[in-house]
């Protein structure tokens, strides 16, 4: 066990630092500021574009994307990836363009796309010139993606697509959508779905903001009425969109499982407890609150070092097995318990909304409380994940109802 990196990696870290010092100046860093927890995709500025081009050239970004399509085509190395993230974050330098285009579509195209699709889409996506949204969820189909009902019928050279998608983040800004569409109505549930690329400017597409529980509008609904999509605008074979999409979801699960946001929440919580007075005394001096904080810190540290254990396993190319599967549920439950404590620390101000300046920390923890749902629900609900832990992690029998 050695928590410092070997000389090889320390050298790599120095190399990354030197690169950053050279290409991402103090002025750039100041301008960039703190990254938001949930970054939304946007077209990059010229400054960012120039920097990212350098970073790709150096092998730091888009490491799993072939050079031919704008990536840096590096062998997988969990430690190098971590070092890059750590150093880029410390320098507030741009990393991969956020959003589902890079996170989900690009790996799918790399794996399943035709040479033409790769050529057409990957490079502009990784530069942020093409913004994507995801069209999986539907009002009638949540965890059970295979039951989706948006349908596509072939009419000459085009698919005619009708249906509705929901929980689409940034559909308003997106140029294209990658979507799952049922094209063979008579096939069994998991077959007959096609992975389709749809240009958002096509007539018949309407995007409506979806207002959330917490008052924000980070998601939209997308209505598709007789939308004409060119016949060849599909990834993988017709009717085989289900396995294509499932390879993508792995990325999403890994993304949501991190502990950074939990650490941020915890650190904020400690400050909240220190600076919020309850009846003349800082909340942190209350024995019950203090005890709960320490218990939560123990769980947080367990989660953080569990992450390091997983990283080590990945670095050694070992299967993370059960240890990898439990991360999401353990982390989101921890996050829930953290924000739950925050509400208790707020005392009677739990009644006040985020943004109310008279609430402690302007009520920001109320929003965190509400956002916890997105964590619980995003990337498959907790119950679905429980099934996966039980079946793949513990070897219990598969659920007959959800058998595929």
């Amino acid at each position, binding site marked *: 066990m050695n928590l410092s990196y070997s000389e090889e990696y320390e050298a790599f870290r120095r190399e990354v630092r030197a690169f950053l010092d050279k290409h991402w100046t103090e002025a750039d860093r100041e301008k960039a500021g703190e990254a938001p927890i949930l970054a939304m995709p946007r077209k990059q500025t010229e400054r960012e574009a120039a920097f990212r081009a350098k970073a790709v050239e150096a092998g730091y970004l888009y490491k799993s994307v072939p050079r031919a399509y704008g990536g840096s085509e590096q062998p997988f190395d969990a430690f190098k990836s971590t070092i890059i993230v750590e150093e880029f974050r410390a320098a507030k330098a741009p990393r991969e363009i956020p959003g589902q285009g890079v996170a989900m579509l690009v790996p799918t195209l790399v794996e399943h796309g035709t040479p033409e699709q790769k050529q057409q889409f990957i490079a502009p996506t990784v530069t942020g010139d093409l913004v994507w949204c995801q069209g999986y*969820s539907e*009002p*009638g*189909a*949540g*965890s*059970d993606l295979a*039951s989706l009902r948006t349908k596509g019928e072939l009419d000459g050279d085009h698919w005619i697509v009708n249906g509705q998608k*929901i*929980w689409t983040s940034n559909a308003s800004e997106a140029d294209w959508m990658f979507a799952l569409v049922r094209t063979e109505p008579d096939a069994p*549930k998991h077959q007959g779905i096609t992975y389709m690329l749809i240009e958002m400017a096509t007539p018949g597409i309407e995007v409506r903001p*979806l*207002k*959330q*529980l917490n*008052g924000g509008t980070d998601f939209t609904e997308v209505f598709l009425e007789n939308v004409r999509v060119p016949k060849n605008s599909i990834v993988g074979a017709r009717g085989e969109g289900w396995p294509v999409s499932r390879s993508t979801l792995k990325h999403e699960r890994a993304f949501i499982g991190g502990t950074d946001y939990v650490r941020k929440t915890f650190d904020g919580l400690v400050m909240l407890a220190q600076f919020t*007075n*309850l*009846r*003349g005394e800082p909340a942190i001096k*209350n024995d*019950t*609150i203090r005890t709960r904080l320490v218990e939560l810190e123990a769980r947080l540290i367990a989660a953080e070092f569990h992450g390091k254990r997983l990283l080590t396993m990945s670095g050694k190319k070992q299967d993370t097995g059960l240890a990898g599967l439990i991360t999401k549920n353990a982390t989101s439950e921890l996050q*829930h318990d953290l924000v739950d404590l925050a*509400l*208790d620390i*707020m*005392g*009677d*101000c*739990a*009644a*006040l*909304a985020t*943004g*109310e300046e*008279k609430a402690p920390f302007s009520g920001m923890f*109320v929003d965190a409380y*509400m956002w916890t*749902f*997105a964590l*619980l*629900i995003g990337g498959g*609900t*907790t*119950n679905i994940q*429980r099934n996966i832990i039980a079946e793949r992690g513990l070897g219990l029998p598969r659920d007959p*109802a*959800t058998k595929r």
Partner: protein
Amino acid sequence: MDFGLSEDQQLLKATVARFLAEQCPTTRVREVMESDTGHDAQLWAGLVELGIASLPVPEEYGGLGSEFLDLSLVAEELGYAATPGPFLGAAMAVIGLVAGDAQELKARWLPETASGGSLGTVAIGEAESVWDPSGLKTSVSDGKLTGRKPLVPYAAVSDFILVGAREGEESGLWLVEAGASGMQIEPLSGNDMTRRLDDVVFNATPAVRVGGPDALARCLDAGLILISADAFGGARRVLEMTRDYSLEREQFGQPIGAFQSYKHQLADIAAEVEPCMALYWYAAHTVDAFPEQTAKHAALAKIRLGEMFNRVAFQCTELHGGIGFTWEYDLQLWFRRALFDKGFLGEAALHCDRVAEMAGW
């Protein structure tokens, strides 16, 4: 031995429920919620017509002089329907007036509140989650009241405010009329937009004494019980919605309510909700039958129900999946009301301390 509702009580409860089902569907809740004041005079007038404003007013002042449990049952139904408006503060104000000894004020205000002509509210809690009378700093001297009350329901639309304060060592309630000098009202942004809160500052504001420590205690205890009843109604509604949703919504070819794990989660929620009814019923019953027990049982009800409602609202929202996270889906109305019920009148920890002290622990 009858730990149940009388026929009159069942009728009252059913009448209020029917009225709200007809007059206060969630579409209307949302309209009121999005209005400036959060107060729908017409809806309130309808409720007054049903008698809810007269229930706590003694007959001699034109009211019904009902048992406190009756009013609590109404609060449950208002919670069930997520009814927007000033009920809680108005009811507490009346109870404070009745419990006090200011005959002139009673004669002046009680008949009007019973008929819906006037609306009262209460200002008790102070900064740093102080709600116990012993901790109040707002003070009265020479008929002038000075202090800050950061969580006052519907101060902006009320005709009078009963303020918890102290004169010398003795705590009590004082009445301030709308528009009194030295009073500043600032609206707050709350999680629950169906029950508005204002931040009110008094600076040498003219105030008339309503009653002493007992009146203040009765007013606060009544509020704790009414908020508990509201929480019960809300939790009941949320559970029902989730049950209904689980029967409609299909996943993997069957209603999600057929999945064993879902069933068990809902069963656990039901097992948590159901006994809470008896807890608030009994607390309400003590007000008339065993007033010496009210302080303890009102606090216990608030401790349990305030937390239970939040837990249930959270779990049920999660059990809905994505749709529960939308603004359009009605569940969020109760999710937000739960946060009001959690915080207003003081958090669970405060009341745990109070109960422990009463027990000498």
